[in-house]
């Protein structure tokens, strides 16, 4: 009887400790995450420009966004274009580097630090530094092109090249993916490789049928995180291009930023925020839905 009482008390105590530990997180989840999310939806159905009481307008903001807004539809295209180039580029780059670093080469730690370094540099400084590299007449890249006998390009000052140029910076910054891939590669069971080798598989076959399947959960994780990050891209536009030239780097987040904080159209900008939330949500759901077909889970876990 007494023992039962004691364990009950202990459980109660454990619950109390847990809630004390979680108070900050619960406050954050409620007031900084889910309530604001609901507020975005609510506000987006009104007309409110920073003063007075929001006036209910139903879906008018959304209709305006998709019919008469001069920037919005293009910004979706530009953002998706950028995300695809940046995500695919950084996935291939970081997986390739991780595969190379996973081999028996000297000074691995040093090289890992080198490839990781761009990630710890402040974004603002990175974009400004790269804008000098992309400079049309005396920049590093045009110098390299001239050595290869190619005509000078305008990179971020050209509406065709601005998105790929910015995506290249994103690839350069993706050192964190390398480290995660590398950790995944080190967890691929050695016995699988040995078994495949005994069966006479060559290097490519081992990569294709052993390494790659074992890496799929990590590829999925990196893909998802890279997609969410890149779909929200805003810093290059803020720091460098101001959406230009023309509208060719006017990303969704930048359009939202301008409407909200430059023109004070808060409720209208909320509609943009909510559409981008749905858009990222759709991509996330698609990724999760297809993941069952290509993610390989080792022998019936869970």
């Amino acid at each position, binding site marked *: 009887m007494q023992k039962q009482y004691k364990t009950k008390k202990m*459980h109660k*105590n*454990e619950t109390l*400790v*847990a809630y004390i*530990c979680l108070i*900050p*997180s*619960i*406050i*954050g*989840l409620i007031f*900084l*995450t889910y309530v*604001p999310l609901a*507020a*975005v939806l609510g*506000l987006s159905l009104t007309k409110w420009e920073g003063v007075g009481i929001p006036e209910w307008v139903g879906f008018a903001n959304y209709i305006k966004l998709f019919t008469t807004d001069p920037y919005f539809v293009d910004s979706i295209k530009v953002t998706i274009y950028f995300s695809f180039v940046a995500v695919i580029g950084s996935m291939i780059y970081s997986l390739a*580097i991780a595969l*190379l670093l996973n*081999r*028996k080469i000297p000074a691995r730690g040093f090289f890992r630090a*080198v*490839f990781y*370094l*761009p*990630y*710890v*540099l*402040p*974004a*603002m400084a990175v974009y*400004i*530094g790269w804008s*000098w*590299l992309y*400079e049309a007449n*005396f920049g*590093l890249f045009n*110098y390299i092109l*001239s050595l290869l006998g190619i005509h000078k390009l305008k990179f971020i000052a050209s509406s065709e090249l601005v998105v790929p140029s910015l995506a290249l910076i994103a690839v350069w910054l993706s050192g964190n993916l390398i*480290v995660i*891939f590398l*950790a995944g590669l080190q967890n691929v069971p050695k016995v699988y490789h040995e078994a495949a080798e005994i069966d006479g598989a060559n290097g490519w076959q081992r990569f294709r049928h052993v390494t790659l399947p074992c890496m799929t*959960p990590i590829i999925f*994780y990196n893909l998802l995180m890279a997609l*969410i990050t890149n*779909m*929200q891209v805003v*810093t290059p536009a*803020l*720091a460098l291009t101001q959406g230009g030239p023309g509208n060719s780097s006017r990303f969704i*987040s930048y359009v*939202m*930023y301008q409407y*909200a904080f430059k023109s004070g159209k*808060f409720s209208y*900008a909320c509609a943009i925020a909510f559409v*981008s*939330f749905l858009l990222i949500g759709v991509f996330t759901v698609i990724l999760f839905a297809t993941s069952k077909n290509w993610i390989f889970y080792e022998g019936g876990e869970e």
Partner: protein
Amino acid sequence: MMRREKSFASKKRNEKVANIVSLVLVIILALIVMLPIWWIFRSSLMTNAELFQWPPKFLPPNWLFSNYKDALVYFPFWDYFRNTMTIIIPAVIGGTITATLGGYAFARLRFPGKKFLFSLCVGSMLLPTMVTLIPLYIMWTRGFHMADTYWPLILPYFCGGGAFNIFLIRQFINTIPRELDEAATIDGAGKFRILFSIILPSIKSAMIVVALLLFIQIWNDLLQQMIYINTSENFTIAIGLSQFKGSLKSDWSAIMCATCMSFIPGIVFYLIGQKYFVEGIALTGMKN
């Protein structure tokens, strides 16, 4: 027998060749990755006249470290640095502590509503931060009248430090054998006692990782700094740099000095925590 030995030897040789090829590739790629940083640094040590010469020189003709002194006249780096640190230090401390507490609760404690709270937490990881930007801005500036202060940039970090970091700490705590907790419980230690005497000493490296990740995140958060900070005395490095660039359109040598100065704190913090960093990031990619 002979053939088998021969094929074994040739396999060994193949492996060796492959490793050498990999090393060469890694060196080339590392040089390519470092090239932009070198180019920015080398440009900061040259005069504008030297920068606008064709063909560009790979090495600065004279290493003009005095450029930095000149740039500092117009680019008050130390003021910006102090302002940035005024945000970062409390935010990083708050974020690390609250993420650790949250991670501990999810990793070790049983309580009603755990599954629900945890899925809310993971769900918020998938929620883009830009979506909630406007309501939060209204809350901080209209509700709490904190426009042009650092509070909107600091206080959120005292509220959990981000789902990702909670998750990271949880992953780390899961690698500590539960037997240690159980032994301590038998000795009469409470849950807080276990946290302080068993868990915390073993997750120091994870906490350093969280601190570094928060550092980078805040350092890079140009958008929020731009919307909350208005007066130039309060500027952070990121905003200051963007203003500096805007006012000096083509004085590239001075701009590159300012850029290099902004690189330094990140590099220093990274070098200090590098060992833990790689370890910790690696864990985030693991299956739960």
